[in-house]
């Protein structure tokens, strides 16, 4: 006979390096626009945090098409940081999200240290931002982006430069396209990062055998989706063992079980990315699934199982 379990009071709140989230499920930058795009499908204020599209100082047109192609259990993208620039973000997108009580994490990308610092300075004091994610790992732009994310000294420098300009928590998004992710994570921590976001896309490509050319106009693109989940889990597991700051984990999360894997590998919170394209309600469904798991397994606080699978 099944034991009758008592109804637990659940605590899903997360303190992600000073970013206070009502639940641990966020949506990844570049997969959710500015939130409003998905408003007809999901209660965007119910999402742990909306990490908005990467913002640069000046508007960017992005890369020529084709920009995306589906691959086995995943997709490649080379958008090239198309965005209207930080002023439009602050004046047109942010106030709407703030009014709707959406937890917003800004995502900034620069070509130089000075640009990252200037972006952080410009966002300082803007109401409605819970934290800043640093895009130091975009594989699809010629300058900046990835080159900031693959050199430990550069990672440290860019985190320090941004920290100097902001009172908000700072969370660099790490690239998986490195030899030693732990080295990069430690450099970010030394630079003063409040949390780590892991992982960005894996650089890849596809070839059209009919035209005998690369499919993407940018040739290379970032691989995302379920195909990269094992790689993301491995990297989070490795980094969790070595750092003291919390990790926002993601890479191919499609359901609550996937999210639990990331949490058990050491992620304090998770991000849903490509999964949003398939199911725009996924973030909130995962929250529901986490609650069910916590009830069934008598886990009152999700923090109790963060990193529980990690063998130190």
């Amino acid at each position, binding site marked *: 006979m099944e034991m009758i379990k008592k109804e637990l009071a659940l605590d899903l709140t997360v303190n992600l390096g000073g970013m206070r989230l009502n639940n641990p499920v966020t949506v990844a930058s570049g997969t*959710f626009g500015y939130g409003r795009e998905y408003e007809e499908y999901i209660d965007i204020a119910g999402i742990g945090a909306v990490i908005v599209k990467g913002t640069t100082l000046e508007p960017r047109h*992005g890369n020529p098409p084709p920009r*995306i192609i589906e691959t*086995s259990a995943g997709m490649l*993208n080379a958008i090239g940081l198309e965005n209207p620039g930080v002023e439009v973000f602050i004046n047109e997108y942010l106030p709407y999200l703030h009014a709707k009580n959406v937890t917003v994490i800004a995502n900034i990308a620069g070509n130089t240290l000075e640009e990252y610092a200037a972006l952080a300075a410009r966002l300082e004091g803007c109401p409605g931002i819970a934290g800043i994610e640093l895009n130091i790992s975009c594989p699809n732009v010629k300058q900046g982006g990835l080159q900031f994310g693959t050199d430990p000294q550069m990672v440290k420098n860019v985190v320090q430069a941004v920290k100097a300009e902001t009172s908000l928590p700072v969370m660099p998004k790490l690239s998986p396209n490195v030899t030693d992710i732990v080295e990069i994570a430690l450099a970010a921590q030394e630079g003063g990062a409040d949390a780590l976001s892991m992982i960005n896309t894996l650089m890849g490509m596809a070839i059209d055998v009919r035209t005998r050319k690369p499919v993407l106009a940018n040739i290379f693109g970032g691989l995302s989706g379920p195909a990269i989940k094992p790689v993301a889990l491995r990297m989070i597991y490795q980094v969790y063992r070595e750092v003291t700051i919390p990790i926002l984990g993601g890479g191919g999360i499609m359901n609550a079980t996937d999210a639990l894997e990331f949490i058990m590998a050491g992620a304090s919170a998770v991000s849903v990315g490509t999964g949003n*394209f*398939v199911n725009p309600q996924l973030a909130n469904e995962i929250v529901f699934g986490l609650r069910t798991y916590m009830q069934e397994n008598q886990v009152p606080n999700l923090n109790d199982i963060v990193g529980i699978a990690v063998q130190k």
Partner: protein
Amino acid sequence: MSCLDKAMVLNNRQVGPELFVMELSSPAMAGKCRPGQFLHIKPGGTEDPLLRRPLSIYDVVAGSGRISLLYRIVGKGTGLLTGVKVNDYVDIMGPLGRGFALPDQPENILLIGGGVGIAPLLYLGRVLRERQCQVKVLCGAGTAGQLVAGDRFQGLGITFVPATMDGSAGVKGLVTDLFKSDDTLAGIDRVYTCGPEPMMAMVAQWAGAHNIWGEVSLEEHMACGVGACLGCARKLRNNDDGYVKVCKDGPVFNINEVELYKN
């Protein structure tokens, strides 16, 4: 307003070589569909293929709650769709995108479709006829068996002019060869086109030369379908204006707005 729905499949049958029509029951969505919009459909619950497929709305009969989709097998996703059975449920999102701009008063309309590009033109034709427009459709295909929409157009009182590459129906050759006859074009107020891009590029050139207003409906690989991922970008003719999103800014554009692929 668009939404998510689990729609019951009323019909899913082959209508021509690689061509299928799926009829769905979605009272939640059917009443909102405008010609030129699309549904984003998930082919099965698999992670491979992962993404939804954007399919043009082929027909909606007002008040019926039913939406028809015409699709061609182009890969894994559409291949899976052919296996969907009557009474199964499919996961759809929509209606999405900007549809065709419709005339306010009765006009002489020319529709030009190539291949499966005929799909959005049928529902457009239905709505134009409801608005008392005179409508003619030029329809290109490889062979007669692929001209699957002819009876439906004719049933709406629309003149159906086919062209086939093998000459098995209508004029032998490309649908654009039909432009060569000037009386095909006499008195046309506006043109709507959907099909292979070189065909649409020729239509655009022709419409420009005759100073006729027109719209094109584009197809692109899409991920989100709602303007969030910026994956389905297309270049505007004026390069300085950057890119548009086929899913949100389109899939219908003014015939002069977007740079069409010439091959």
